């Protein structure tokens, strides 16, 4: 796609959204049979799966911690998830995203309850349209809850950015590519604590504050959707084996 002349026309974005509007969001809980917990998130054209295994025995053994469980995260993109085939396996980007994802989630998980164990979080991006790391965290947090892992709260995540000089919520790939700024963020919504923050592009100090405001609003909506998804699963199928 060529760079469009304008990404925002009459206050509407290319896909018709207002600047502070999320893409359509769908969250499903417990869709994988073998995992201890799982979740599937669609955010616009993003399709992301997350699975949680554990707490289980840590292998290799020398990675065991005597006083706590270890949280391991793997963010991975399917080769067919992007326009040009992505070579399978970890690259520098996915190694970094795996690291910041773990750091975004670790805050809320009561790891001390499971010494010598590991909790594995696997995030697979099946289809990508910008915001996959945040959709991955949103899915992983729900999967952790589905697995029954004790947590202080559910982590919610979304990206904000700047496009044509306007602060916008939840960028699409076109907006990410042709816009000025992308700022993924994750937070513990009840206490409004930020556990992931990255940014590239350009913000003045004032724009940064505006972007934070919008990110808080966006995460609240994500948080509501996460809780609603969990409620639906456990309200309707109560008593059933998952």
């Amino acid at each position, binding site marked *: 796609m060529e760079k469009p002349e304008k990404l925002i026309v009459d206050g509407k974005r290319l896909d018709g959204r207002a600047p502070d509007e999320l893409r359509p969001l769908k969250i499903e809980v417990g869709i994988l049979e073998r995992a201890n917990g799982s979740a599937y998130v669609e955010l616009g054209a993003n399709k992301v799966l997350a699975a949680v295994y554990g707490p289980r025995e840590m292998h290799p053994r020398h*990675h065991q911690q005597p006083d706590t469980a270890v949280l391991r995260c793997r963010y991975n993109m399917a080769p067919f998830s992007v326009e040009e085939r992505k070579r399978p396996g970890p690259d520098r980007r996915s190694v970094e995203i795996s690291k910041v994802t773990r750091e975004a989630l670790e805050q809320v998980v009561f790891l001390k309850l499971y010494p010598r164990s590991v909790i594995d979080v696997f995030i697979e991006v099946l289809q990508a349209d910008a915001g996959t790391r945040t959709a991955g965290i949103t899915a992983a947090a729900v999967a952790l809850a589905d697995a029954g892992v004790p947590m202080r709260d559910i982590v919610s995540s979304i990206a904000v950015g700047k496009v044509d000089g306007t602060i916008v919520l939840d960028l699409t790939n076109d907006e990410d590519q042709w816009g000025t700024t992308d700022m993924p963020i994750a937070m513990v919504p009840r206490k*409004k604590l930020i556990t992931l923050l990255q940014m590239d592009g350009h*913000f003045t100090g004032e724009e940064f504050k505006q972007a934070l405001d919008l990110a808080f609003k966006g995460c609240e909506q994500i948080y509501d959707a996460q809780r609603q998804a969990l409620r639906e699963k456990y309200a309707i199928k109560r008593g059933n084996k998952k």
Partner: protein
Amino acid sequence: MNMYGIVSSVKRDYIADLARQGKRVDTRMLDQFREVSVESGPIKSAQGSARVKIGKTQVLAGVKLEHAEPFSDRPDNGVLIVNAELLPLASPTFEPGRPDENAIELARVVDRGIRESEAIDLEKLVIKSGEDVWAVFIDIYALDHDGNLIDASALAAIAALLNVKLPEDEAWTLPEFPLQKKPVAVTVAKINGKLMVDPRLDEESVMDARITMTTIEDGSICAMQKGGIGYFSREELEQAYELARAKAAELRAKLG
């Protein structure tokens, strides 16, 4: 896995307790860097190089310019590649082998600061559109890890770029290296609820979280990265930004 090593609980409590009182182990103020020095051009075999010391932390950065094919989606842009090596000689916790997640994060944080600020005008580095461009390789070599490798590495990278001597190659037609901005990274650590700049290694080993903000001359932000398993409140982020902006100006002055 942990790049900061093990710290005793006595020291952890000591540092945390000092932080609560607004003090630090080496008597610095919370907003005070250790002594910073920038040495330009120590390596003659590189097109540009710099050695940065922040306290006892030492980082060497070297720049190489080479012909390359442009990325297919950016036929009219030169190529920028930042790589970081956490050398085994720099710390007992660094091991030989492929870059681990810490080295990769370090390289990518430095990369984003330079790339997103458009510090290098990559469009000027095209020799033949879609076929031949200049690739700017920035290799960061951590020599001694006593904390705050990110700020030292980012400063070394921009200092090395400022030091670039033009290649003796007939394809090079620019009068000077197209460096147009000086992004500077400042990392703010949070210990026991207090924010401080330039954490020493022992402070890093007990910090709850860190936030790196890379700013350019006008004080605007071009890159950010939070690290560590702790969190920041909104107020803390705004406070960190004010610190980063003020300290970046001080560090930039060291570039001459």
